[in-house]
């Protein structure tokens, strides 16, 4: 993010841009409150703070809001037995479940990027079937801030995507508790009526590289809703503008053809500054619109594109400027291991209350309660008297799943052969990973930095696509590579997986260190840190004549040392399999 720190005095245009984004957010709330269902809801990217609080307050003004507590599990959403109350009263006490309690209200989920896969799936189902209205607060902080993300299945179903991450509101207004809701004036005038809004929105979505067909469908719903708010029956230019800004723009993965990306320094901060007069060249050299010349007035698509351009996702322009096509974020924590209280092979019983996925061990519960029956006051109906302390739950053992992290030295002359063998090894490992349900990640270090080439994945299709673009050459920043490997390994361990780091290098660092520390010493220090973290490592020395640097590094990180002067993919896989924790 380029706008991490705001200058003490904001200049005028920035303040205006923030005000625009804020009023857009309020419009979104207004639209959501007026539409009973079908839009799904809002995905708001914003860190906790006064702006987000103001947003939540504004939301609370128009609809009853229920917060999903962080402790909730998928069962909390469904109707079920209130066990504690049932035991206390001796008769079944049901709780209706959050979904039923919300009714016409809005479910608000803070820290949405931490939602468990089970809960995400249940919420997605409720959006499809029950017309739930959902507001997610995504706190992951940008495209590169942490690994957790709102699952794509859920994000796709929420029509409105907002980003209030860097928005500042005037301090005076915040102090006064006045957020400007409901919006005093509708900034966007209705404009010309649009004959075929659906066609315009669909064409624009395609030009913006939005694959999902849900986006234009939702955009049209939103346009209808916005028109209805104004008391109009037909969709006008202003409605599709709003729809484009709230729905299409944030989902864009490319700029419409024929446009050069704006310089990344200015674009994400000040989207409204982009002059809307750029000719988007869709009149003559755009085949897509020519298919249906009779039904699409070309200017309707232009209106959509112009509006969408003000709400492009942060990072898109940077990515385009660097020539990297932006990837839709992957499924986030979807592959994470589930708690051992819920699944796997049964492994005994312990005291505790059921819920959060844990299951009551009924027989054990009754066994625990039985000896106390003589001491406890006898119940009138003659049944067992069971107290909360008697409850026992089952435990399960789930086999820890492995993630193999390949750190490849992509530097210098040997890079080409080494990289292609490393890619081959990753694909072979993935092919085996079917059976073990293991994941594989690949990081490469070259030039002056290390980068993740393939985030942990189980997908061969994805691996092949992402590895195809991997380049080699440059210096050897070994320390950076080891540090990154450790970071990924730590994250994998936090996901409940067992990481195994495989390092392919000749062990000779020539980039890194600084301040009197040689690159080799820096690499040694990183290796020791890796060793202290206690991750399992394999160090594959692939230099033609192994020298002591390699084995010294391997010893420092406590790694198994394998010298493979003639590197090939199958030998790498064999070395990895030998080191794989049983």
């Amino acid at each position, binding site marked *: 993010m380029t706008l991490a720190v705001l200058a003490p005095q904001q200049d005028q245009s920035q303040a205006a841009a923030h005000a625009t984004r804020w009023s857009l957010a309020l419009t979104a709330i207004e639209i959501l409150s007026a539409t009973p269902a*079908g839009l799904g809801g809002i995905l708001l990217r914003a860190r906790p703070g006064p702006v987000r609080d103001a947003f939540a307050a504004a939301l609370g003004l128009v609809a009853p809001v229920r917060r999903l507590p962080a402790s909730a599990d998928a069962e909390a959403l469904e109707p079920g037995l209130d066990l504690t109350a049932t035991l206390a009263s001796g008769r079944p006490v049901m709780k209706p479940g959050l979904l039923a309690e919300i009714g016409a209200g809005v479910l608000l989920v803070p820290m949405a990027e931490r939602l468990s896969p089970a809960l995400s799936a249940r919420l997605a189902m409720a959006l499809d079937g029950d017309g739930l209205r959902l507001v997610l607060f995504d706190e992951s902080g940008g495209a590169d801030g942490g690994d957790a993300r709102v699952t794509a299945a859920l994000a796709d179903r929420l029509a409105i995507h907002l980003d209030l991450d860097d928005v500042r509101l005037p301090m005076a207004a915040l102090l006064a508790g006045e957020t400007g809701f409901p919006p005093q004036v509708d900034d966007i005038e209705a404009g010309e009526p649009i004959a075929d809004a659906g066609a315009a*929105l*669909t*064409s624009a979505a*395609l030009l913006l590289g939005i694959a999902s067909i849900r986006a234009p469908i939702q955009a049209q719903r939103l346009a209808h809703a916005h028109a209805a708010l104004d008391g109009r029956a037909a969709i006008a230019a202003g409605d599709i503008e709003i729809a484009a800004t709230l729905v299409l723009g944030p989902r864009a993965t490319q700029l419409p053809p024929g446009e050069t990306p704006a310089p990344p320094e200015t674009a994400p901060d000040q989207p409204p500054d982009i002059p809307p007069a750029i000719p988007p060249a869709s009149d003559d050299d755009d085949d897509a*619109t020519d298919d249906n010349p009779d039904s699409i007035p070309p200017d309707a698509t232009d209106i959509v594109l112009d509006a969408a351009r003000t709400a492009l996702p942060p990072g898109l322009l940077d990515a385009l400027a660097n020539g990297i096509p932006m990837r839709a974020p992957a499924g986030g924590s979807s592959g994470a291991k589930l708690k051992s209280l819920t699944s*796997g092979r049964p492994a005994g019983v312990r005291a505790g209350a059921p819920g959060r996925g844990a299951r009551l061990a009924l027989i054990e519960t009754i066994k625990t309660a039985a000896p106390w029956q003589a001491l406890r006051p006898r119940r009138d109906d003659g049944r067992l008297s069971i107290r909360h302390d008697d409850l026992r739950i089952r435990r399960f053992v789930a086999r820890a799943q492995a993630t193999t992290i390949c750190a490849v030295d992509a530097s210098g002359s040997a890079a080409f052969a080494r990289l292609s063998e490393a890619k081959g090894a990753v694909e072979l490992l993935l092919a085996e990973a079917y059976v073990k349900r293991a994941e594989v990640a690949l990081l490469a270090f070259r030039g002056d930095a290390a980068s993740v080439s393939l985030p942990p994945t189980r997908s061969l299709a994805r691996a092949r696509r992402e590895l195809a673009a991997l380049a080699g050459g440059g210096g050897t920043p070994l320390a950076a590579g080891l540090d990154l490997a450790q970071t990924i390994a730590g994250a994998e361990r936090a996901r409940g997986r067992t990481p195994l780091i495989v390092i392919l290098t000749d062990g000779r660092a020539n980039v890194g260190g600084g301040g009197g520390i040689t690159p080799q010493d820096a690499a040694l220090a990183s290796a020791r840190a890796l060793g202290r973290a206690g991750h399992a490592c394999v160090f594959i020395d692939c230099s033609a004549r192994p020298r002591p640097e390699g084995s010294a590094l391997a010893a420092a990180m406590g790694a198994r040392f394998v010298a493979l002067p003639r590197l090939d993919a199958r030998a790498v896989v064999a070395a990895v399999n030998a080191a794989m924790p049983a």
Partner: protein
Amino acid sequence: MKAAFPFSAIVGQSEMKQALLMAAVEPRLGGVMVFGDRGTGKSTAVRALAALLPPMKIIAGCRYGCAPGDTEPCPDACRARAGKRVEEVPVPFVDLPLGATEDRVVGSLDLERALATGEKRFEPGLLAKANRGFLYIDEINLLEDHLVDLLLDVAVSGQNLVEREGLSIRHAARFILVGSGNPEEGELRPQLLDRFGLSVDVRTPTELSDRIEIVRRCDRFDRDPAGFAASFAPAEAATLGSIARARKKLPDVAVPDMMLELGSRLCQAVGADGLRGELTLLRAARATAALAGKKTVLPAHVGAVAALALRHRLRRNVLDDTGSTARIGRAVAELIPA
């Protein structure tokens, strides 16, 4: 619950629709696996097909959806309780959430009854609910392994056996399993893939005119569900009619020896492992013939379903990028002269 989108109103995705129709005609095909991107109408299509089918007759009040003609014992002893009373219910469509626990799926002891009245009673799970209908699992590749194993086992055997918490229950669970998943988010084990009868690759439509038509139809459906459904009623009736005719006709469709041979040669040519692929191929060809109203299976029927029945059973060569579909297409072109 809003009205379902009409099956005939789904734009494109002809392969998926064809596979679902075949599964509806021939339940023994063993389910459909749909690979594809998000928002391609996977769940809409399955939901629509379930809504399209005529309501089914069950014994009144049976929690397991027993058909009046069933002879299998029902844990509820519904026949004894309800006698001859029969009621009509819509064909069930069960959407299995990703995080479903084993309890929810197979059923478990009815805790409420157990605690309150001391009665040991089985609370049927989603498998019982899906009996004689559709069980749809989105992102099946992310579902826990042991649940997938369990589901496929039940889908193949048509029976759910519960041996837990002192309960010993067996009930019918015959459903059409439809799984969907995005291969970019993790693969399904080949052993599991093989258990699915048919597999379909769906892509987001890229034709602008198709996409516009989808958005238009969704908009019309949003604003006037009843009117929209009415405009597709004739098409829906035609689909329903062809399913009913094909179901009736299916047992009489002949499979000539030549077709059996063609099936095994095709499987050999593409390197599909196991007998299951061959059997599914012929069953699918027979269902296609029945849907087309033919009395015998023709080579064209086998060719038409080859990709559906076999593409997920090919041994994968890690270093060969040629897609399974292309390999099957080549073999079909060689073996079946157009």
